[in-house]
């Protein structure tokens, strides 16, 4: 039996061929090393994300998340639900809080779920993968497995919004959370605690609908990382990762900048540090290649 077992809610962007498929690949390798067993919730559905608000209304949004809770309870009873995506985690957790605090909403949700032949008896805990790593395993446990420290690599920890606000990870400050910096140090790299754009919004869904507004913010995020001498940016959120990485070319056109900085997931750093290959870490999934990491991943492991 694995040390830690969870019901897994990967979310739409993590699926094969989707924008965060590299995240999923690296999380799988990371969990293997850490002996964490993730069992996908069968037939899970979209969380509705924040951006669905115009059509979603209140109850339909919660019902979508509640369906996942019901499926988890039915198929993986007693297990906490773990999401890797910030939006999935936040959406599910919001639903959990609201249903817990409103009997009416809970009753209405149960009534709707009945239509899909499902029900909720117990409200599950909703965890983000980072919470699992920090709170359940701890930094010491994570560090134990480092066999190829990312020595000399300077990394800006970009926390972003939705893993940080309004719930946050491990009781950290909303204005200056430290956990990502600690994870960077844990894999043997150099963190930038004074990186002042670490909780700036990447523009979220406005990157699609109003790209110029989102890109103005992304520019600040990337520029500050460069100003602090970062070689790459690391983030715990798929939308942060995508927005900050893939629009750098367009920003260069608009602002005349020369941005070309890789944006990684914490799980990718960990996999490389744990001795995994470039493929295990899904480094091929970067639009802006992380050459430095690829070099390290090619080195033999010091055992």
């Amino acid at each position, binding site marked *: 039996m694995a040390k830690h077992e969870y019901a897994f809610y990967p979310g739409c962007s993590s699926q094969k061929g989707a924008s965060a498929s590299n995240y999923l690949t690296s999380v799988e390798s990371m969990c293997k090393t850490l002996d964490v067993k993730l069992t996908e919730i069968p037939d899970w559905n979209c969380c509705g994300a924040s*951006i669905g608000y*115009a059509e979603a*209304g209140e109850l339909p949004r919660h019902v979508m998340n509640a369906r996942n809770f019901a499926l988890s309870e039915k198929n993986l009873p007693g297990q906490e639900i773990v999401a890797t995506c910030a939006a999935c985690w936040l959406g599910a957790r919001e639903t959990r809080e609201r249903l817990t605090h409103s009997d009416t909403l809970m009753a209405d949700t149960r009534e709707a779920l009945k239509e899909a032949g499902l029900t909720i008896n117990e409200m599950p805990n909703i965890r983000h993968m980072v919470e699992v790593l920090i709170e359940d395993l701890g930094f010491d446990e994570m560090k134990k497995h480092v066999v190829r420290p990312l020595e000399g690599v300077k990394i800006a920890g970009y926390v972003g919004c939705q893993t940080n606000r309004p719930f946050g990870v491990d009781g950290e400050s909303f204005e200056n959370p430290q956990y990502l910096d600690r994870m960077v140090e844990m894999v043997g790299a150099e963190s930038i605690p004074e990186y002042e754009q670490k909780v700036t919004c990447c523009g979220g869904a406005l990157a699609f609908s109003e790209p110029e507004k989102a890109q103005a913010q992304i520019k600040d995020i990337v520029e500050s990382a460069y100003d602090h001498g970062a070689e790459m940016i690391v983030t715990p959120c798929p939308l942060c990762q995508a927005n900050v990485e893939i629009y750098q070319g367009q920003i260069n056109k608009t602002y005349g900048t020369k941005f070309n900085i890789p944006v990684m997931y914490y799980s990718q750093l960990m996999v490389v540090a744990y001795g995994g290959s470039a493929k295990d870490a899904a480094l091929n999934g970067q639009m802006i290649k992380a050459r430095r990491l690829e070099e390290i991943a090619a080195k033999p492991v010091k055992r």
Partner: protein
Amino acid sequence: MSANTALAEKYRNNFLKEIEEQVEMGDWVKMCMQCGVCSGSCPTNFQSAWEHPPQELFMMIRAGKRDEVLTSTSMWNCTSCYNCIVRCPRKLPITHIMHGIAEYAHRIGLAPKMQATRFFSGLFWKNATKTGRVNELKLSMGLYFKNGFGSGVKEGMKMKDVAIGLVLAKRLNPLELFGGHKCKDQKGIQAMLKKAYEIERSRKAAKMAG
């Protein structure tokens, strides 16, 4: 409503009551103490994107400025970053109220027609609920082609490099146009959502009737 009645309604509580009844978390609006921390914490407000930042919208609601609020593009600029929520000294769930006002304006047809985020929001929800899972390619295409085929090609071309990059990184699959990821129990999901809408509508209608 005649101009005089409209004037008489100003600064009365009628519109506030409407917001309290119809908007998610709307009963928090009255608790705003007009400190302005939300406006100063909003990333898109810094780009002057908000005609009326949240604090001002709250005041407008109290002032009975129904049309100005519900037709405003302001709340559609919310990026769901939750900065206003965590900083509000009165603990107003501002992000949710902004979404709620937008949703209400959309529901009763007062929201600005071609507002890009309004369009995208609807598109996203439909895309996600149709099969139970988001199809990223169809979502993007749908957005680019919202103004018709010609402009869609143009918008799409702007994003060409991004798309090619993603395809090369195996993070965008052209084949998603034909099928793609989906849930198995789509029928159950549709029935469940239909019921949820029904309940929500009847609850809001009951509140309206008093």
